């Protein structure tokens, strides 16, 4: 169709039109290539998760079969079995208590600190912030022995309280940092105006600052939740049968008992599903927390 329109035109004009057409075609080809490539890469990277969910819907027999069963009658029997057999709910409850506990306590400690540093900075504030960050870089194995012994001697070994304390402290620097970057974006005039109206410190934080930064505070809370939920160094080393969260339950499947692949997959799917959804919701805001504000 295009060529027909071009025909009556003079020769030089046609020569100019031709590359333009090629460019448009090239662009379409490029767009299709990018789309296909991006989808292929994404599906490849996501595949292990898909495979896990698929396996969780098979019978144990099907889960082992070669060639792998691709068409099968999905069953929820593994989920039923997981709930019935492995005290799944106890471990899930431990995960919930510990990660929510650590995240809530962390926010309560961090908000005043971030407020203080964002709105009443001193000469030392920047140094303090960087020092806080440096505590996050302490490798856990460096303090494994003392913390194990301290937990043992204070009867906090294998307790939810002990694990909550540790999770609060390991996430505190990130939580303070993230809240600090959100507070810094609040115009100081707003807070000053409220202060002039006679609001005290508590009212200022509670009724003005927190509502304004609610979005940022929520993503901070979510990041803390995700990190606590997935933490697997202290949970493996400091908990056993009583306070073990889901990370430790799944690790116990690596023993010969773990030959129940379909049930392992069901337990795993249940363990990762809520956090995966949280991660999807807050992906953009997480970058700030994960990079200590260096990338926004």
């Amino acid at each position, binding site marked *: 169709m295009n060529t027909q329109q071009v025909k009556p035109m003079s020769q030089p004009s046609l020569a100019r039109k031709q590359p333009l057409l090629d460019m448009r075609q090239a662009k379409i080809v490029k767009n299709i290539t990018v789309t296909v490539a991006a989808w292929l890469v*994404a599906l490849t990277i996501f595949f292990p998760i898909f495979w896990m969910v698929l396996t969780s819907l098979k019978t144990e027999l099907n889960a082992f079969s*070669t060639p792998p069963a691709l068409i099968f009658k999905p069953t929820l029997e593994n989920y039923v079995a997981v709930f019935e057999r492995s005290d799944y709910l106890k471990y899930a409850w431990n995960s919930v208590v510990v990660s929510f506990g650590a995240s809530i306590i962390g926010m309560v400690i*961090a908000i005043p600190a971030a407020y203080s540093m964002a709105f*009443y900075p001193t000469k030392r504030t920047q140094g303090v912030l960087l020092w806080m960050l440096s505590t996050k870089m302490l490798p856990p194995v460096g303090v494994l022995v003392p913390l194990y012994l301290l937990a043992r001697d204070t009867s906090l070994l294998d307790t939810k309280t002990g694990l909550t304390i540790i999770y609060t402290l390991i996430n505190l620097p990130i939580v303070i940092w993230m809240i600090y970057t959100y507070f810094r974006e609040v115009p100081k005039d707003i807070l000053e105006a409220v202060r002039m109206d006679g609001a005290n410190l508590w009212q200022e934080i509670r009724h003005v600052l927190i509502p304004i930064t609610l979005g940022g505070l929520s993503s901070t809370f979510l990041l803390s939740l995700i990190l606590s939920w997935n933490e*697997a160094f202290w949970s493996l080393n400091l908990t056993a049968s009583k306070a073990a969260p889901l990370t430790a339950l799944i690790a116990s499947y690596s023993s010969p008992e773990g030959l129940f692949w379909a049930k392992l997959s069901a337990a795993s799917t249940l363990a990762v599903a809520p956090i995966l959804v949280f991660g999807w919701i807050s992906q953009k805001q997480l970058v700030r927390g*994960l990079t200590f504000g260096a*990338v926004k």
Partner: protein
Amino acid sequence: MSQVNRNTGIARLLVAPSVLLLLVWMAVPLGMTLYFSTINFNLMVPGMKAFVGLENYYYFFTDPSFIDGLTNTLVLVGMVLIITVGLGTLIAILVDHPFPGQGIVRVLLISPFFIMPTVNALVWKNLLMNPVSGLFAFIANTFGLQPIDWFTDIPMTSIIIIVSWQWLPFAILILMTALQSMDQEQLEAAKMDGAGPLAVFRHITLPHLARPLTVVIMIETIFLLSIFAEIFTTTSGGPGTQTTNLAYLIYSQALLQFDVGMASAGGVIAVLLANIVAFFLIRAVGKSLAEQ
């Protein structure tokens, strides 16, 4: 006025609880580790805590598994960094421009980062890499190839694959976000001037990504130095010491062999190693803080 001043005093104090907590959290255990590293202390031999100076360090350094542990740590960190940063950059650029389903693709790409390390390890070990009924074995058989016995034949490579799968999304997520803040006008201008995709990448994209890349490399390094759960759930450091990194070595010395003295010496070394990286990371973050 006095109301404002009084507020200032109280407000400044609000940072104190956090500082105090983190100070105790850092100083007490580190002090204990340092102390333990200079005494002869075995959990199975109660009461015996003689001062031995640097003997623990001497034993730790001359223990052949220390050299293995250090080498494995560096190989693991290095390889995972190369894979995640390299592929991460390419993938982030690939999905930067709008295309059908871009949102879903991004969600799929970052998902592995939110999977807990023990689930990650077991899904790979059992469902994918099992030499008899794993999916990879089936694929190999289909093509008439001998299936690889991943954790026996190439244990370190297997760990590297598993850990890379977990951390690739981190690099993608950070770099994807960084790319969105790129100056689009500058990009268009460069294209108008006839700059090819390679030139654009070399002279515009790469400089723009310089800081995010630095941050990704350093944060990954900090976490990768302490990789533990993936090794704990798959190989337990074996076969032999082939997948024992420093973190796992210290763990096994402390909680499997109960040699607190030597484990503490190892802990001090791990802290020093992390501090070298941390120093540069803190400097980079401090710089971006000062620019705000």
